[in-house]
């Protein structure tokens, strides 16, 4: 079967290529390639620099909790405690931030009067513009002391949950405090993504729900949330990516120590990013290389979370 039986197809356009077109296409293409090169370069740098310490490590890097890397011979260090603290802090932040973000987005799109809505949207975006060192100061100076009594009552009433087993740290500088600060920091991105997708819900779907006697909340449940699911999930995972890598605020709030502890009311946990920031100035011997190995793990975790987010969003777009 032939597909080209059109008699005398027009000759292919062969006109000479205009110089502006060529230049612009070249610029765009090289910018696109540049991003791949940068990514590959970072990954290569991390692997090459991490290799000496990983090769010399006397312990299993993935399962060891200690960090004895600032030596000239026989370093013994591992990522287990740090990776655990990182993922736990980011997950708790996500659990706290996502429902609030969905609520804010729903309020902005479907409940607030128009002027309040745009003001509120602007304020949420402003949250994203606050430097993380400011969040860190806020975390140490305000949040941690304020949370101490809260932690005390949490451990009194919910102490039977391993996460909240006491006794709570008297300084308040715990993983949960860091998670609260992280939750505030990732709130804007989750809100923005949810708000965008809620605004795209076709009017027809919303009216269909209302026309059969749905209240506003029922309309949201029937038409808005199912449509917005992929946007919410995507936003949450981008927020998680941010929470995983966040350094300054976490490093400032958490005291330097290393252990795997489910008890988020006590000090003792640390995250990869915070650990690197705190240790780097004093690193000697295999120390720098070991910290870069930790960075490599963070890079991998963040990459996986971001790719998962893109995948979920893309799949959702295809369905809708």
């Amino acid at each position, binding site marked *: 079967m032939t597909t080209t039986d059109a008699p005398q197809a027009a000759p292919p356009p062969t006109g000479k290529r205009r110089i502006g077109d060529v230049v612009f296409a070249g610029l765009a293409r090289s910018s696109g390639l540049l991003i791949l090169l940068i990514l590959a370069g970072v990954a290569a740098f991390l692997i090459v620099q991490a290799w000496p310490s990983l090769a010399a490590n006397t312990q299993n890097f993935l399962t060891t909790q200690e960090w004895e890397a600032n030596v000239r011979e026989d370093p013994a260090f591992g990522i287990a405690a740090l990776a655990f603290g990182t993922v736990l802090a980011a997950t708790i932040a996500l659990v706290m931030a996502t429902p609030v973000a969905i609520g804010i987005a729903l309020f902005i799109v479907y409940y607030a009067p128009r002027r309040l809505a745009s003001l509120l949207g602007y304020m949420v975006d402003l949250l994203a513009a606050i430097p993380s060192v400011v969040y860190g100061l806020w975390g140490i100076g305000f949040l941690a002391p304020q949370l101490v009594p809260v932690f005390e009552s949490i451990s009194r009433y919910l102490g039977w949950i391993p996460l909240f087993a006491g006794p709570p740290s008297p300084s308040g500088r715990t993983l949960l405090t860091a998670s609260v600060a992280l939750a505030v920091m990732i709130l804007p991105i989750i809100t923005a993504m949810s708000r965008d997708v809620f605004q795209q819900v076709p009017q027809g779907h919303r009216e269909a729900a209302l*026309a059969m006697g749905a209240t506003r909340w029922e309309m949201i449940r029937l*038409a808005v949330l199912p449509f917005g699911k992929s946007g919410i999930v995507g936003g949450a995972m981008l927020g998680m990516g941010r929470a995983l890598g966040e350094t300054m605020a976490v490093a400032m709030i958490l005291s330097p120590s290393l252990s795997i502890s489910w008890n988020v009311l006590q000090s003792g946990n640390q995250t990869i990013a915070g650990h690197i920031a705190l240790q780097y100035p004093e690193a000697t011997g295999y120390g720098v290389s070991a910290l870069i190995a930790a960075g490599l793990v963070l890079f991998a975790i963040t990459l996986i979370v971001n790719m998962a987010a893109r995948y979920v969003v893309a799949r959702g777009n295809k369905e809708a």
Partner: protein
Amino acid sequence: MAKRIDVSGLNVFYGDFKAVEDVSMTIEPRSVTAFIGSSGCGKSTFLRALNRMHEVTPGASAQGKVLLDDLDIYGPDVDPVMVRSEIGMVFQKANPFPTMSIYDNVIAGARLNNSRMSKSQADDLVEESLRGANLWEEVKERLNKPGAGLSGGQQQRLCIARATAVKPSVLLMDEPCSALDPISTLAIEDLIHNMKEDYTIVIVTHNMQQAARVSDRTAFFNLSAPGKPGKLIEMGETNQMFTRPEQKETENYITGRFG
């Protein structure tokens, strides 16, 4: 059960702009009433004001009286949510919920009012509603497939089934066939004809043959002048409206001699 709608002196506004002016009419139960008129003459706006759907549009408001039998739907204590479960609506573009199966689409509205419905009650209601919409035979083997996978005409009948599953007394249809091919249109028109035994049906249409085929009574809307509000020009038996209209304007419109 089908109910009568009595409208007196209804005005509808979008912000300061008056879109519909001083419409009074009676819509008879167990009959089909067609609204005809050129685009932008306010007939859809007026239709939406009959179940307070216009309130979904920011800034829209209505003045006047609309009685559903004895109930003033604009009364101070009347909940628009309740009004819309009594007066259902079908839209121009078929809008089944895309993430839901055919079954869940049909049952969605009924579940709102009765969340403790048993499985067998729900099954019966789905079958009854789909049969009522002449769709049962076509979809009974694939009730758990997404509603968005049906053809345009089937989707529109699914939307009709969804609207009737709530057991309204009135069904408002806003150009339900304008996006459909002639065969699907015929299926919907047959359906409207059967449904008028149980419901009060109001249909907005641009297609005058359709109005003549399906309706018992016809109302003609027109703008008094460009930029002015739409008005009800004339309403009467469909036969008479299409053969001996009383107003010159109506005659011009239905004979196609219209600007």
